[in-house]
């Protein structure tokens, strides 16, 4: 299959390309960018006039809910949501049921995902057995089975000795440890940021220091053990300041935020909107502004969707009892574009946050469209508005704080390994 994508604006941040530029694909790979290679006869031509061609998006956190939570979502539904959102590679946290703590489970997941021929799935292995925070998993075996790193998802890991051992062991093999910093005691029972809104609504709260205390501990342990650390879904101003200092010091640390944290604050909870029950909690407007700044200046390396499909019943409960999380795969691109537009960040710089920067964190060589690369491509209309509604989402999780909002940026085609895996229905 040979594909010629023509007339589009190619944005390939890693290769510093932002130009009107054709892309030529053969045998699953990019064979040329710009001029048509000799003897190239396309089986299919995609006219990308008025559209942006960029590397397929790389999402650093998307829950696929398999194994164990198939009633919330299945691999089929969520992989379709991924490609409909232009996401061609995604990292899934290990908090499935059972957790991804055995090589067999990882192999099964990878196999299931591969058989769907859609986005590439990169599982994170559990850092401790059953995510109980006590005994280490067989990290080397898990790595051989396909784990790209090790994480404790959102489960508490309050024993710092176990955390240090886990980091030492991971560092032995050069594995990256993915952690979402949160002090288990300070966050206990909390469901919202400890601020004005939680006080007014009488919601059990999580103070910002729950994040900064845990993050300080993690950074000290990184210094001690030499482990490479990726900090997931930072939420607070204090957290950003700590990462900024750690990077200045030269610690091997990277970090991401969830895309909804770039737009929302505690105020959006309004009158107990359970779609705004998220982990970590939406914090103050000052925190949100600091996150947006951190994204602009590069303290925050990447933006993830933190895709967490939740079934409707689990949201139709009082705020604290409602399950945390929001669907996100299909919103990652438009919400990143929205942040860029609002802050004056260029389109290439914004796209880097969801393509080449995540692959740098993953130490993978994709996330760009240089010749010879696997042809994972996202083609989107940067101007097109669409309304976020349950019916407009492919994900089985229809809950998001952005329901009812008009967003700009619509994916038209998604290619994985040179195959068109998603094509938006033609609009009449």
């Amino acid at each position, binding site marked *: 299959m040979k594909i010629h994508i023509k007339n589009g604006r190619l944005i390939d941040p890693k290769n510093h390309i932002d130009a009107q530029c054709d892309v030529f694909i053969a045998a699953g790979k990019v064979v040329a960018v710009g001029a048509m290679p000799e003897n190239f006869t396309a089986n299919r031509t995609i006219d990308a006039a008025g559209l942006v061609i960029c590397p397929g998006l790389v999402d650093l956190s998307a829950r696929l809910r398999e194994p164990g939570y198939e009633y919330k979502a299945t691999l089929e539904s969520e992989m379709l949501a991924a490609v409909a959102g232009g996401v061609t590679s995604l990292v899934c946290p290990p908090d499935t049921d059972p957790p991804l703590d055995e090589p067999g489970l990882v192999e099964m997941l990878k196999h299931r995902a591969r058989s769907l021929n859609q986005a590439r799935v990169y599982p994170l292995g559990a850092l401790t057995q059953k995510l109980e925070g006590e005994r280490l998993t067989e990290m080397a075996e898990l790595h051989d089975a396909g784990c790209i790193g090790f994480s404790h998802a959102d489960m508490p890991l309050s024993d710092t000795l176990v955390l240090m051992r886990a980091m030492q062991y991971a560092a032995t093999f050069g594995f990256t440890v993915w952690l979402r910093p949160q002090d288990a005691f300070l966050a206990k029972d909390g469901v919202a940021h400890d601020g004005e809104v939680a006080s007014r609504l009488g919601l059990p709260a999580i103070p910002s220091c729950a994040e900064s205390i845990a993050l300080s501990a993690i950074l000290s342990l990184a210094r001690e053990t030499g482990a490479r650390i990726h900090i997931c879904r930072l939420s607070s101003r204090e957290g950003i300041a700590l990462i900024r200092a750690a990077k200045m010091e030269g610690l091997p640390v990277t970090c991401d935020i969830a895309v909804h944290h770039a737009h929302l604050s505690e105020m959006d909870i309004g009158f107990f909107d359970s779609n705004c029950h998220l982990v970590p909690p939406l914090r103050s407007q000052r925190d949100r502004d600091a996150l947006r700044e951190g994204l602009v200046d590069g303290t925050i390396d990447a933006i993830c969707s933190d895709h967490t499909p939740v079934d409707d019943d689990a949201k139709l409960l009082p705020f*604290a009892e409602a399950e945390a999380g929001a669907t996100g795969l299909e919103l990652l691109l438009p919400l990143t574009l929205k942040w860029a537009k609002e802050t004056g960040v260029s389109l290439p710089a914004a796209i880097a946050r969801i393509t080449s920067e995540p692959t740098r964190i993953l130490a993978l060589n994709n996330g760009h469209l240089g010749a010879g690369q696997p042809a994972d491509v996202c083609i989107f209309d940067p101007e097109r508005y669409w309304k976020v509604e349950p019916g407009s989402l492919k994900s089985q999780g229809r809950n998001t704080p952005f329901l009812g909002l008009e967003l700009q940026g619509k994916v038209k085609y998604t290619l994985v390994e040179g195959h068109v895996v998603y094509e938006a229905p033609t609009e009449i």
Partner: protein
Amino acid sequence: MRNNPQLNKNGELQHLLTIEGLPATTLRHILDTAETFLDVAEREVKKVPLLQGKAIFNLFFEPSTRTRTTFEIAAKRLSADVINLNVGTSSQSKGETLLDTVDNLAAMQADMFVVRHGQSGAAHLIARHVAPHIHVVNAGDGRHAHPTQGLLDMFTIRHYKKDLTRLRVAIVGDLLHSRVARSQIHALTTLGVPEVRIIGPKTLIPTCAERMGVQVYHDMATGLKDVDVIIMLRLQNERMRGALLPSAQEYFKYYGLTAEKLALARPDAIVMHPGPMNRGVEIESSVADGVQSVILSQVTFGIAVRMAVMSILMGNKAGGEA
């Protein structure tokens, strides 16, 4: 969802979920209406036919005696049919969800739900869910709100002090866990009370409390100085079990209301308590039963205020057409 979920299109009360965001005119209208119901209790036949044929469900997911009883009396004095349900002991323990319980009861032709629930926001959830002809009254949700208590406290203060715009009011105790305090604060600030003080140890004061328009004190002596109204809050015994307070004895010594501390307030200051009281923990018996105490009046006024709330809600239709 950003609109005030308790008002209909005409800005009239469809539900009573929280005091927050309600205009002063709405609060005054409720208090004025309550005045007209006060004398019903004095009649030989303690009933008015306003809500005849209406079905009011008291839906209590948390135990309550006083609040449930006063709602029941209020509804009966308005001639409504009252059905009391202590759900905490039945459906919830069988695993039925909150909204399933509500749907089942709505199918029994309910006109109004009076709801108490342990989770903040439960009344909002129900109000969003029910059919437009059903009214919801929040009788306490988690730590969030207890609007009829807030209103009856305003009624009491107005009864004894007349002009609210010249008062200093102090609320003392466990504000962190108190839905009553939150409703009182919103009611006091909305009705123009110029100085609302809250007094308690830092472990029991919510973060950013001053954003609610109050002044925060940690010392009783300075906090009570020259106030016109003292509202004591109930301290749950379970607060002693965590790391919030060391002991009931120490709490009483520093934050309990004694005759000695009461003397710091204005000589004509009134003492209030939403009940149930813990004598010797937050309040000394001599003060609770003393001449400045209006605690039992609060209970009596509570019936008139709840009658007012129920009759006003029932008179307002979802679409706004009267």
